[in-house]
């Protein structure tokens, strides 16, 4: 059985459920709308900022502010793509048809990641240009050094978040359990750990904190982060690989 056949089949599966459209369009709308809102507010606020804050002012990163909420929709997308198979029992039909479980999981993740990447890149570019429009005179240009890298990085970040969620869902299987762990983690725990000075050093190695470094263009004043934008994305990739390996081992070992 050729991998292309499995990929085609997974594409049919993913496009034929409503949750794909819903989660992905929610991610797009939330990221863009929130990015525009924060960008507009920041533009008005700029004049009241301290000198220090003005030096750290990063128009590119501000336009990606909606990512923190938009990624939650992508987490739901990633979790549902995998755990729907388990919650509906479809996994038994799928695995009876694709006995090679590695092929099955790889195809599923490839298709969903490809889709998330396309949607993520589109979102990233749209949110950048609309955000910059809201920022007015404080805007950054796409040709500025590091900006294009940040915008493409935003798309990569969204795809990686979806991949990480798929790996976790493959390990945990239950959609409720997976979402119950991933949502609070990315929405609360990671932010808290990253903003409390005692845990900051650990917090910045978490997948979302490390990965979002790719979207920064202006390094904040007295920033001590020991890795650069690509280093941060690399750390995130390591997390994703760990989750996917865990998911693969679980799928291979356990009864369906």
């Amino acid at each position, binding site marked *: *059985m050729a991998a292309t056949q499995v990929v085609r*089949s997974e594409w049919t599966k993913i496009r034929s459920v409503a*949750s794909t459209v819903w989660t992905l369009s929610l991610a797009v709308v939330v990221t863009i709308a929130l990015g525009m809102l924060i960008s507009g507010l920041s533009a008005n606020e700029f004049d009241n900022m301290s000198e220090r804050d003005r030096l750290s002012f990063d128009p590119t990163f501000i336009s990606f502010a909606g990512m923190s909420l938009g990624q939650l929709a992508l987490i739901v997308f990633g979790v549902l793509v995998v755990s729907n198979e388990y919650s509906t029992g*479809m996994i*038994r039909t799928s*695995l*009876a048809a*694709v*006995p090679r*479980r590695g092929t099955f999981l790889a195809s599923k993740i490839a298709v969903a990641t490809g889709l998330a990447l396309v949607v993520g890149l589109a979102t990233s570019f749209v949110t950048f240009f609309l955000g910059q429009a809201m920022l007015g005179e404080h805007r950054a240009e796409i040709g500025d050094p590091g900006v294009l890298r940040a915008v493409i990085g935003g798309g990569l970040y969204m795809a990686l978040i979806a991949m990480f969620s798929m790996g976790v869902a493959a390990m945990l299987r239950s959609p409720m359990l997976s979402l119950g762990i991933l949502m609070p983690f990315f929405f609360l725990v990671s932010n808290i750990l990253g903003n409390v000075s005692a845990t900051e050093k650990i917090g910045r190695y978490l997948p979302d904190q490390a990965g979002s470094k790719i979207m920064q263009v202006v390094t904040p004043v007295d920033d001590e982060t020991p890795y650069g934008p690509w280093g941060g994305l690399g750390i995130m990739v390591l997390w994703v690989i760990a989750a996917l390996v865990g998911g693969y081992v679980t799928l291979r070992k356990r009864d369906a």
Partner: protein
Amino acid sequence: MIEAVGLTKRYGDKTAVYNLSFQVRPGSVTGFLGPNGSGKSTTMRMILGLDNPTAGQVTIGGYPYRKLPNAPRQVGALLDAKAVHGGRAARNHLLSLAQLSGIPARRVDEVLGVVGLQDVAGRRSKGFSLGMGQRLGIAAALLGDPQVLLFDEPVNGLDPEGILWVRNLMKSLAAEGRTVFVSSHLMSEMALTADHLIVIGRGQLLADMSVKDFIAANSAGFARVRTPDTEPQLREKLSTALAEAGGQVLPEQDGALRVTGLPLPRISDIAHDTDVRLWELSPHQASLEEAYMRMTQGAVDYRSTIDQKAGLQQPLPPGAQPPMPVPGQGQPGWYAPPPPQQGGQPFAAPQGGPGPYGAPGAPAAAPGADAPNPYAQHAPQAPQGQAQPPAAPPQAPAQPPVAPAPVAPSAPAAPTKPEDAR
């Protein structure tokens, strides 16, 4: 051809399937029977590589399923009618399965027509009834035109027309030389569909023989004898006399007696000699259903008890009769009489011995070699001394055509006797 050798599956300390060995041959419908929870579905899942056996192995055409080349074109399976994503349209569900093995989309519409779902092809399957879900599952199994087909309870939820259709479908698939393996808990359905039977109880093999042999070995006849209700002592007297003449007597719920081992004229003569009047003397044939229930009664895990309705019982309206208890309920030893040959059972139900079940919950009346007449223990009214089986029951063949003893608990490694397996 499906071949299982020493298949065993444990979940924690619960053994779902124990040392199961059998072969499913092409060209015939093989029925897979057993009570609820006896391990049918677990075995099916192991055949399809969904669950890993704890010990032993099962192969299809010589390959373990996970190593089978282009599996969807070789094996089609209906496991669970509800094992589909309810939000996906029926046609898309089948299309995703078809694309896996390079089956053209045209074939999807074909099988939708075969199962009669063409009109709802675009509808989400969560709105489907159980019967429609079964049809969708059967369509998925037929998709790759496979040589080996597995169906787990395919007629569940189908209407009579659908049941007839499935029955004919199975037969025609087998007639084309395919291997068809169908599980069910309905003996009556399997008697009509299957050519060969594999019966399991508590995860162990109880029988592996052709339907013809199964009927020959199990459908014992019996006589129903009714003495005047007004004189119960006559009944006692006749039971004793019949038992002394070598018959086996089993009291029925309504006061009649089931007699095996004696022909009808002889029963009449004995009644005449002992001066007992008879209100009824009629010949009966135990159904295959009863034979199957007797075989599996020791291996039933989930048995209903009589609903006492403690504290909930409505006072009966004056003049109303309380309902008669349903025969068989809460009465494990009730079912059909033992099979006609000497020495009791052709099947040794799993009990004690080397099996994983110490049988703490098993009814003590499980038919077995050490209890030639299991009914004696459950029939306190029946006089002692009738427990000896008859020397040669006259109304039945002394021995079945083949010795149907596929697995004894003491020799679980000898799975299938070749002469049993057609």
